[in-house]
C-alpha cells in the first residue's frame, strides 16, 4: 500500500466537514481586505493627501509595530492595504495552521483517524491531505483577495503578489502546524505551539519594523511574517521573496513527514511519563481541576505577555526618535512632544494587549463548552458539585487569568519604561494603564458565558463578537461608521492611558455589563439540559 493511498478521499472528507466555515472565512476575509482598500482610496483621493498620511503612518512607532511600514509613500495600493493587508495575512496563517491540526492531530486524539486508518489509508495520507487542504485554502483565499483588490481598482501586479503572498504564507504555517502536530499528543497544544510560532514571528517583525534604521531592524528578516511584508506589494513588487516562504514551507513539510514516519499512531515524540497513583491533596474541587487543566496554557500565555510587556516598554522609548519629516514633527507637537508620543504608543499597544487578554479569556471560558460536549462535565455534575460551581471553575480561570495577564504586561512595560526614563513613577502609571483594559476583556468573557448558558451550539459567537469588536475599532472610522455604532465595542470605552484621563464610569459600567452577562449565562445553564 502506498503511503499516500486514500489522500484524495481524506481531502474530500475534510472539505465536506469544513464546507460552511471554510468558504465563509474566505469570503469574509476577501470582502474585508477589498472593502477597506476601496474605502481608504476614497478617503485619500489625491497623491498629496496619500503622501501626508503615509508619512504619518511611517513615523508612528505603534503603527509600525502593529502593521509595518508603507514602503512607497506615493503608492495608493500600499496605503490602501497597509492595515488589512497584514491582518489578512495573519488570518490566512491562522486558518492554515488550524486546518492542519484539525485534520491531523485532532482526528488522531479523538480516535476518528483510527477508524479511517484501518481502511485503505496510507501512513502519510492524513498529513498530506491536511497540507493540501490548508495550502489550497490559503491560495484560494489569496486568489480571492487578488481578484477583490483588482475589482476595487488596485494595480493588478501588486494585487496578484498580495494574493500569492497570502498563499505562500499560509502554506508555510500549514507546514509549521504539520511539524507541531507530530510533536505533541494534544491537538490543543499542537495548535497552541503553531500559534505561538506565528506570534513570535509577528513580534520579531514588529520589533524589526519599529526599529528600522537601527541594528534591530534586521529582525524583520528572521520572520516569515516579515518576509511576507518584504514582498512589498504595490511598492516595488519583490516577487523573489515569495521563494523564501515556499522554501521554508518545503523544508518544514519535509521535517513533518520525517517525524510522522518515525512515530507511532496517536503517539507524540515524547512518551507519556506515568502520573501519580493518588491525587494530590489539593485536587479536590472543580476549580482545582480547571487550574490543573489550564495551567500549562496559562503559563505559556503569561510568558508571552511578559515578553510583549518588555518589548513594548522598550519600543516606547524609540517613539518619535527617528521622526524627521515636517509632518511627523507636526504630529509630535500635536501629541504633546516626545512624552506624548511615548504615551500614545503605549496606549495603543496596551489596548491590543487588552484584546489579546480577551482572546485568552474567551478560549479559557470556552473550555466549559468543550468539556461539556466531550462528556467530561457529566461525571463531575453527577457528584455533589452543582452546575454553577462547576461553571465558575473555568470561568474563574478566564476572569482572573485575563486580569493577571494584563497586570504582567503592565509590569513588564512599566519596568522597562521606568528604567529608560529614570522615573519610577512610570511603573505605576503604566500598570494602571494596563489594568484599565480588564473590564472590556471581561465583557467578552461575559458574552461567551451568556452564549454557553443559553445556546451552547452557537458558542462560536464568542469569537465572532471579539473579532467583530476589533474590526469595528480598526476599520469603523475608515467606513465612516457613526460613533454610536463604534460604541458597541467594549474596547471603545476603555480610557486611553497613559496620557489620557482615567474615567471610573466606563470601568464600572463595563464590569456591570460583564457581571450581567455572566449572570444570564449561569441562569440559563441552570435551566437547560446538559450534554
Amino acid at each position: 500500500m502506498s503511503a499516500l493511498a486514500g489522500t484524495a478521499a481524506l481531502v474530500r472528507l475534510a472539505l465536506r466537514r469544513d464546507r460552511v466555515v471554510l468558504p465563509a472565512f474566505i469570503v469574509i476575509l476577501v470582502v474585508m481586505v477589498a472593502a477597506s482598500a476601496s474605502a481608504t482610496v476614497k478617503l485619500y483621493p489625491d497623491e498629496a493627501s496619500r503622501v501626508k498620511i503615509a508619512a504619518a503612518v511611517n513615523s508612528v512607532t505603534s503603527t509600525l509595530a502593529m502593521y509595518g511600514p508603507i514602503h512607497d509613500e506615493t503608492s495608493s495600493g500600499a496605503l490602501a492595504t497597509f492595515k488589512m493587508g497584514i491582518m489578512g495575512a495573519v488570518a490566512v496563517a491562522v486558518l492554515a495552521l488550524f486546518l492542519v491540526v484539525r485534520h491531523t492531530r485532532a482526528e488522531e486524539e479523538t480516535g476518528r483517524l483510527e477508524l479511517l486508518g484501518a481502511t485503505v489509508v496510507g501512513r502519510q495520507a492524513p498529513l498530506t491531505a491536511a497540507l493540501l487542504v490548508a495550502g489550497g485554502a490559503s491560495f484560494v483565499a489569496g486568489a480571492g483577495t487578488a481578484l477583490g483588490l483588482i475589482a476595487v481598482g488596485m494595480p493588478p501586479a501588486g494585487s496578484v503578489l498580495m494574493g500569492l503572498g497570502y498563499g505562500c504564507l499560509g502554506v508555510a504555517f500549514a507546514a509549521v502546524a504539520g511539524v507541531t502536530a507530530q510533536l505533541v499528543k494534544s491537538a490543543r497544544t499542537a495548535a497552541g505551539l503553531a500559534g505561538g510560532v506565528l506570534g513570535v514571528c509577528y513580534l520579531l517583525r514588529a520589533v524589526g519594523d519599529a526599529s528600522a534604521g537601527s541594528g534591530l531592524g534586521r529582525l524583520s528578516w528572521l520572520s516569515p511574517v516579515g518576509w511576507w511584508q518584504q514582498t512589498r506589494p504595490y511598492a516595488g513588487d519583490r516577487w523573489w521573496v515569495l521563494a523564501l516562504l515556499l522554501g521554508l514551507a518545503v523544508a518544514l513539510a519535509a521535517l513533518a513527514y520525517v517525524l510522522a514516519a518515525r512515530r507511532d499512531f496517536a503517539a507524540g515524540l515524547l512518551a507519556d511519563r506515568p502520573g501519580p497513583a493518588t491525587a494530590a491533596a489539593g485536587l479536590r474541587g472543580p476549580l482545582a481541576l480547571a487550574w490543573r487543566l489550564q495551567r500549562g496554557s496559562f503559563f505559556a500565555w503569561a510568558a508571552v505577555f511578559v515578553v510583549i510587556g518588555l518589548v513594548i516598554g522598550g519600543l516606547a522609548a524609540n517613539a518619535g526618535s527617528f521622526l524627521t519629516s515636517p509632518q511627523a514633527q507636526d504630529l509630535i507637537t500635536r501629541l504633546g512632544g516626545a512624552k506624548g508620543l511615548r504615551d500614545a504608543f503605549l496606549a495603543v499597544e496596551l489596548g491590543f494587549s487588552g484584546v489579546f487578554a480577551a482572546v485568552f479569556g474567551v478560549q479559557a471560558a470556552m473550555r466549559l463548552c468543550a468539556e461539556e460536549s466531550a462528556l467530561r462535565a457529566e461525571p463531575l455534575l453527577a457528584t455533589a458539585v452543582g452546575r454553577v460551581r462547576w461553571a465558575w471553575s473555568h470561568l474563574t480561570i478566564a476572569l482572573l487569568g485575563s486580569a493577571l495577564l494584563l497586570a504582567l504586561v503592565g509590569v513588564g512595560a512599566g519596568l522597562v519604561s521606568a528604567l529608560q526614563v529614570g522615573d519610577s513613577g512610570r511603573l505605576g502609571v503604566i500598570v494602571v494603564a494596563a489594568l484599565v483594559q480588564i473590564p472590556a476583556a471581561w465583557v467578552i468573557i461575559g458574552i461567551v458565558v451568556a452564549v454557553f448558558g443559553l445556546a451552547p451550539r452557537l458558542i462560536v459567537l464568542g469569537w465572532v463578537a471579539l473579532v467583530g469588536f476589533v474590526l469595528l475599532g480598526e476599520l469603523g472610522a475608515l467606513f465612516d461608521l457613526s460613533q454610536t455604532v463604534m460604541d458597541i465595542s467594549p474596547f471603545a470605552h476603555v480610557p486611553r492611558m497613559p496620557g489620557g484621563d482615567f474615567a471610573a464610569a466606563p470601568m464600572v459600567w463595563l464590569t456591570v455589563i460583564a457581571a450581567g452577562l455572566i449572570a444570564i449565562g449561569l441562569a440559563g445553564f441552570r435551566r437547560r439540559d446538559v450534554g
Partner: protein
Amino acid sequence: MNAAVAIEKLSKSFGSTRALDGLDLEVKVGEIHGLLGPNGAGKTTVIRVLLGLLRADSGAARLLGGDPWRDAQRLHRRLAYVPGEVILWPNLSGGEVIDLLGRLRGGLDKKRRADLLERFELDPTKKARAYSKGNRQKVALVAALSSDVELLLLDEPTAGLDPLMDAVFRECLVELRGQGRTALLSSHILSEVEALADRVTIIRDGRTVEVGSLAEMRHLARLTISADLAVAPGGLTSMPGVHDLRVSGAHVDLMVDPGSLDQVLIALTSAGVISLTSQPPSLEELFLRHYGADGAAPRAEQPARS
C-alpha cells in the same frame, strides 16, 4: 420510603425525537434493578434525568426521596454513577481521576479503592490518554464502587470489559447488594442482567413494556416443551395457546403459553409420555418477544403494553 427510584409517566423530547414517552420505573431499596432495552430505547436518557442533567418534559421522578432536578447536589452525595461512555481528562492519571471524583462525591474508602484496583488489575499511574476503552471503564467503576453510597447508577457499565473483569464486576455488585445498597443497571447484555438483577424493567421506544422479577416474567412467557410419546398425539394442532408445533412420528416439539400448559400436558399424558423436557424462556427469548429478531417492531400478536 422503600423506592430508591420512582418514575411515573416520564416524557422527554429532543426536538422532534421522543426519547422518553410515558416511561414508568420503580427501583426498590436494596435490589439490583435491570433496565433492559435495545440501543436507542431511552436507557441513558432515563439515567441522565435521574442525575438532574436533563429536565423531563412531563411526568414525575423521585430519586432517594428527593427531586432529581431540584435537589441534584444533595442527592449526588448519596449516589455514584458510571457513564456508558467514559471520557477522562487525557493528562490526569487514573488514580487522580478516581480520587477527584471520590472527593467531589464526599469521600471514598481508601481500603476499598486499593482492593478494587487490585481486583480490576488497573494501573492507576497511567495517564488517561494511554488507557484503553476497557481501562477507562475500570477507572469509572473503581471510582464509583469505592464510594460509600446508597445507590449506584450504572449505564452499561461492562462495555469494553473482558469476561474476566466482567466476572469481577459481578462479584463486586453482589457484595454491594449484600451490604444493602441499591443499583440500577442499564444494559443490553442479557446474560449480565439475568445473572445480577432481582427485577427487570424492559423498555422500548421510551416506554416501559415489561416489569417484574425474572420469575414473574417467565410466568408470562412460553415454555418450550419437547416430548417422546408412546403414540402420535391428537388435538394439539387446534389447541389454543400452542405455537410452533412440530410432530415427527411420536416426537413432539412445541411452545406453549403458560395458561394452556395444563391442557397440553393432559393431551401429552393421554398419548403416553416416555420422556419430557421443558425449558423456561431465556431472557433472550423474552427480549425477542418484545423487540423482534432484529430489534424491529414487536410481533403483531404481542402488542407492547405501556
